[in-house]
């Protein structure tokens, strides 16, 4: 009886964690913009920048895209440059 109760408790806790912990859903945690063969972050490379922007043209947080801290900073700078030159929108539809 005691054992069964413990098992039930454990399962409940796991389910509760999964609700709030988004990283568990994505097994790949390495940064897609670091390492060898990574694409160069430049405001002229609009195709790449559009991947890291939401439908409403907001910059996606790195906890969703798994971009490293330094690269995220570079990315947001380049997106802002592209916005000034009207290569990318400030607000989406």
């Amino acid at each position, binding site marked *: 009886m005691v054992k069964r109760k413990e098992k039930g408790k454990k399962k409940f806790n796991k389910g509760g964690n999964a609700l709030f912990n988004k990283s568990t859903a994505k097994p790949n945690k390495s940064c897609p913009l670091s390492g060898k063969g990574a694409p160069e972050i*430049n405001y*002229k*490379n*609009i*195709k790449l920048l559009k991947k890291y922007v939401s439908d409403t043209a907001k910059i996606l947080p790195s906890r969703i895209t798994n971009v490293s801290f330094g690269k995220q900073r570079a990315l947001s700078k380049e997106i802002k*440059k592209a*916005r*000034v*030159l*009207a*290569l*990318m*929108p*400030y*607000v989406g539809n």
Partner: protein
Amino acid sequence: MNYYEHTYITVPELNEEGSNSIKEKIEEILKKNDSKIVKEENWGVRSLAYSIKKNYRGKYNNLYIEGNSKVIKELEKFERYDERIIKFLSMKIKKIPEEESGLTVTS
């Protein structure tokens, strides 16, 4: 001496004469401040992500300039008062890239 990357957008209806006169004026300003254009790219007419001064399309020109900060100040002063130029952006860069950017249009 520093390297600068400078992009300006003109009205899409601008003919060759108009764009040549803008370029001549820019070269004149650069010459006065002993600077020069190192590299040049033409991005052609692109649709803008948002309207600028009631324009929905614009002609993009990209320049790489070798010079001092005074040149950029003079250049932006001219561009701010020219009605044919709708937007510009200049930034300091460490070195000039060798390859062409993906936005270049060959014509």
